[in-house]
């Protein structure tokens, strides 16, 4: 009796399910074409937006993402009246509220032709402003957030709040979109054969912070810092065609509750050429190892004050470590300037 009842209920449920499925199948059939057409139209419109002068787009599979989290959905070469204009990539990667999908166009002359946001799931009113056509990061010129990338050189830093204007209260969205654009730019520039992509920050050693030197050797005289607590571990000198163009030093100091080790390169005119944060043993300090933090120092004058909050942005969640590292970079740079001025390296 109980078994018969169960079978009966199962059958009734099955009937409802089948009717529901059939109904859905009909609706799906009648809408799927329209939906596919719309998505294709969206894509074509996006491609046209980044390459308005192109006569057509040919799919290509030569462009490869270098970041496992960032996926290139499709890549096209933009065909112009006389040869290729560049590459457009449909790309998606993680953002604040889920994946963000963009179309990024890279021109053969090494600039971004345009960025179009296809999909963004970030907070409405904040991160979603990335998609809005009426949200301007520069009200005077009516530049939208993705609009500011048009014409941007691939050799630029792509650092939010430095050479990229952030969306108010949506720094994470701004960063993730900027990062997507940069990854596409790098990948496309390799395919297009443009050498101009920004120097890879991942390489280690003194030559990475002395980009202008062709030879780097260990210094014959170590730089010393007058700031208590700062110990300079290694000093190197960079030369170009035999002339000293700069010096670098690896230095260590106490930070919040651990120690931080940095590598600083300074040119002979006292400009910081490059900084790498090599190690940070602070309990919450690991975020400052991100290259975006170290990149902020490049181009700053060693003599000028370096301060978190004024001309250096702290890494959120690691303010004390950011301060510690900044103070150490400043002390090391000063020591290098003194050593360079003293001569005998």
């Amino acid at each position, binding site marked *: 009796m109980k078994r018969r009842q169960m079978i009966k209920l199962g059958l*009734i449920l099955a009937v409802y399910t089948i009717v529901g499925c059939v109904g*859905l199948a009909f*609706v*799906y059939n009648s*809408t799927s074409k329209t939906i596919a057409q719309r998505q294709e139209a969206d894509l074509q419109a996006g491609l046209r937006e980044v390459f308005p002068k192109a006569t057509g787009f040919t799919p290509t599979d030569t462009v490869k993402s270098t970041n496992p989290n960032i996926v290139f959905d499709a890549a096209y070469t933009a065909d112009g009246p006389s040869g290729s204009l560049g590459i457009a990539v449909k790309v998606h990667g993680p953002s604040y509220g889920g994946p963000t999908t963009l179309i990024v166009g890279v021109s053969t002359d090494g600039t971004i032709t345009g960025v179009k946001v296809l999909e963004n799931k970030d907070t409405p009113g904040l991160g979603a402003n990335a998609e809005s056509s009426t949200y301007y990061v520069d009200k005077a010129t009516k530049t939208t957030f993705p609009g500011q990338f048009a014409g941007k050189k691939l050799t630029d830093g792509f650092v939010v709040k430095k050479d990229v204007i952030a969306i108010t209260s949506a720094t994470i969205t701004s960063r993730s979109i900027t990062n997507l654009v940069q990854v596409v730019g790098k990948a496309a520039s390799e395919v297009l054969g443009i050498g101009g992509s920004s120097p890879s920050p991942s390489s280690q050693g003194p030559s990475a912070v002395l980009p202008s030197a062709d030879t780097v050797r260990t210094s014959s005289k170590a730089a010393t810092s007058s700031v208590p607590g700062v110990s300079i571990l290694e000093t190197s000198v960079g030369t170009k065609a035999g002339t000293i163009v700069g010096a670098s030093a690896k230095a260590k100091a106490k930070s919040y509750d651990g120690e931080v080790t940095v590598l600083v390169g300074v040119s002979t005119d006292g400009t910081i050429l490059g900084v790498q944060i090599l190690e940070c043993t602070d309990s919450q300090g690991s975020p400052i190892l991100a290259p975006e933090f170290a990149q902020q120092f490049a181009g700053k004058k060693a003599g000028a004050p370096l301060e978190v909050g004024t001309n250096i942005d702290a890494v959120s969640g690691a303010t004390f470590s950011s301060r510690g590292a900044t103070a150490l970079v400043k002390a090391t740079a000063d020591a290098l300037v003194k050593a360079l001025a003293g001569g005998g390296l």
Partner: protein
Amino acid sequence: MKRLFGVFVNGLIVENPLFVIMIGLCSSMAVTTTVANGIGMGVALTFVLVMSELIISLFRNLIPESIRMPIFLIVIAAFTTIMDLEMKAYFPVLSKSMGVFIPLVVVNCIIMGRVEAFSSKQPVADSVVDGLGMGLGYTWVLIALAVVRELLGNGTLLGRQIMPSSFAPMIFLILPPGGFLVFALWMAASNDLRRKLLAGKKPEPTQDNCCTLRENGSAEKA
């Protein structure tokens, strides 16, 4: 006719799903950052609610008591998917901005609650009218929340700049805590009105076997 009108008005204030029954709150907090989203979500939910109540009321004698929940879910999920597909095909902009909330209509407690408490026991006409009333009750609250949050939190209404450019948007109101605050203020106003409406009358007649309401205004969850 008068009875149907009573059922309809019921969902607007007296048994408002958000302010009185207090179900389906998560989506109301999440989508009300802009008025356009609020309207879209309200219309979407009203459509699914009316259709689900209609179908379930039609088949209410053919749904065995012991498996009613899975059957309700099948009906609700089918209509939600239909609406999701139709919106993607014909209202792509709205569909994009609603994002994840549309599939979540399936598990919106308002639909499950009304289907279980009302349309599985009531005639078709009453059920459809109840769906409309509850849907509109939900929609007006979403719009009311969104107007305050979008205007003060972003300086715009329906995407158009309203506030002068010197106005600094109160971003707090766009974020979840601001949502709770605005919700609470509107709820206080709405429930004050409700108390005045009910003041002359006897305590809620339980003619529709719906959620049993206590005199003091709080409600059992459906």
